[in-house]
């Protein structure tokens, strides 16, 4: 079948380029903005996702994994007695000051455990052996710290809360949503550093026994630890993400950007398709005169919208991918899952078809008798 829609689109190349550019702009804006947002949110839960804990026991009303409050460390003993619990350990997460070689002080986020390998923390060790953290005042520091703290090397020393620590290893990918670099140290060392942490912990990490239902185990822990909150891994990750989305206005910000992107896309596509429809009124009149119906003309406009959507999505997708290395150099990750890309594609098609409908009313009223007008 001859595609009048495609031929007309390609016949007027400048208008086609403008239409595709409008769609591509909207697609790029949405993909990059939401991708950045997802990348940021990933940082908010990266330790939750990578730690081998099925259940997290927190103090009451802890808003997210970075902003921990403390509770008695003996809670872990009661948790260990719950049926279905294979292992439970205390985890301290606390902001502490670190002194840099320049003399400046910066904040870092300390993760402190007795047995790091048992919980797969840290999950990407670049250099060193985490088991050595038990020996003396030593730390692992994440490479992302170099951006704020400057370069560091294993074997160097840093002061944390006035105590000298030796850097015995480095990690990758352990970043906090707050941008405070993550430092790993032994649980007791952390308690020694800070009086307020003595005999206190921030979390109890729980690994359930094979075959145990994490939901059921979490419910039982809630019963025996009524002064704590208890979350499964997915619940805790969702709560941490929700905190940043809602409390910081990031969600609203992203929503507004996505809305504006879609609005720009709709306006550009609607405007160009409408102008095209007006300029082709006589052709549409001819279609009607030779026996075509409004549906035939809607199909032409719909097909044009679809072509613009597919071409715009491809260009926008490629642009977004091209921007990823540049974003990575700024330590920003653009996370676009296949599901999200598919959703954006469907949204783009709907956006373009919606924009095409603006022209439907204009062409619906075309009088085929206009073909006899000179």
């Amino acid at each position: 079948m001859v595609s009048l829609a495609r031929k007309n689109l390609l016949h007027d190349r400048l208008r086609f380029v403008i239409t595709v550019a409008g769609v591509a702009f909207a697609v790029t804006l949405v993909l990059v903005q939401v991708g950045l947002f997802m990348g940021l949110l990933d940082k908010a839960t990266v330790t939750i996702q990578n730690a081998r804990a099925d259940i997290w026991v927190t103090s009451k009303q802890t808003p997210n994994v970075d902003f921990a409050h403390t509770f008695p460390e003996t809670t872990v003993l009661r948790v260990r007695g719950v049926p279905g619990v294979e292992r439970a350990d205390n985890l301290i997460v606390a902001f502490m000051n670190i002194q840099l070689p320049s003399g400046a002080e910066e904040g870092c986020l300390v993760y402190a455990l007795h047995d790091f390998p048992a919980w797969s923390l840290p999950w990407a060790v670049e250099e060193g052996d985490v088991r050595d953290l038990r020996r003396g005042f030593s730390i692992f520091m994440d490479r992302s710290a170099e951006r704020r703290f400057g370069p560091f090397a294993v074997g160097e020393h840093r002061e944390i809360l006035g105590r000298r620590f030796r850097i015995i290893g480095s990690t990758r990918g352990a970043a906090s949503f707050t941008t405070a670099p993550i430092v790993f140290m032994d649980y007791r060392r952390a308690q020694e550093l800070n009086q307020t942490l003595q005999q206190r912990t921030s979390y109890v990490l729980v690994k359930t026994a094979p075959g145990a239902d994490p939901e059921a185990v979490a419910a039982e822990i809630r019963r025996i630890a009524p002064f704590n909150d208890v979350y499964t891994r997915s619940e805790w990750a969702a709560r941490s993400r929700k905190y940043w989305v809602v409390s910081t206005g990031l969600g609203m910000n992203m929503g507004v950007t996505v809305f504006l992107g879609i609005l720009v896309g709709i306006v550009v596509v609607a405007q160009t398709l409408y102008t095209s429809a007006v300029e082709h009124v006589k052709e549409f009149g001819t279609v009607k005169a030779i026996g075509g119906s409004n549906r035939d003309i809607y199909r032409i406009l719909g097909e044009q919208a679809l072509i613009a959507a597919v071409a715009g999505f491809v260009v926008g997708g490629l642009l977004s991918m091209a921007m990823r290395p540049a974003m990575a150099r700024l330590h920003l990750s653009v996370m676009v899952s296949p599901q999200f890309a598919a959703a954006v594609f469907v949204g783009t098609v709907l956006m373009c078809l919606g924009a095409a409908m603006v022209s439907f009313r204009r062409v619906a009223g075309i009088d085929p008798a206009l073909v006899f007008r000179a």
Partner: protein
Amino acid sequence: MSERVLAVADVTKTFEEGSQRVEVLRGISLAVAGGEVVALEGPSGSGKTTLLSIMGCILTPSSGSVEVAGRRVDGRPHALREVRRRSIGFVFQQYNLFPALTALENVEYALNVKGLEGERARAEAARALDRVGLADRLHFLPRDLSGGQKQRVAIARALAGSPPVILADEPTANLDSAVGAQVLELFRALAVDDGRGVVVVTHDPKVRAVADRVIGIRDGLLAA
């Protein structure tokens, strides 16, 4: 001549212009037989294009009846569309070709609209263009064709689907004298060879050489 393929009986058409009613056609009856070329002549505003639109089922008459290919035309939009699709081919003064489509695609698209698709449509479009002498211009865009060639493409498009009636509105108005004469000869051949009824609205005096009948129209009435 064979049996009639088009007939209008006692047709009137009135338009509302603000508070005024303008009676454009005032009781016209006319029949066209297969194989016949009928020329409609008249000054501007006499009602010939309105009559052509009614015969072509683009407009409905205020009163009277229209019969195409032996069937009385129902005035409902989808029925009018169906008659246009199956039984009528149009040729316009301005050609009204689709500028983005080649000659072949222009004809093929008309066949697609009429329900014929794929290779069969393409082959029939090629045959129609061959019939009008454009077998060597199949893949030319309208902008690359002369006025006469464009009008031949338009005629080939009108032939798409083999309608029994061809209606042409000032088909030679934009053509030079020699090319206009060739186009009129082509209409004559289409009528005689295929048994179609051809109605040509024109001011061109050369139409007398090819028309079986020349009918004048003045102030909405057929002139004697």
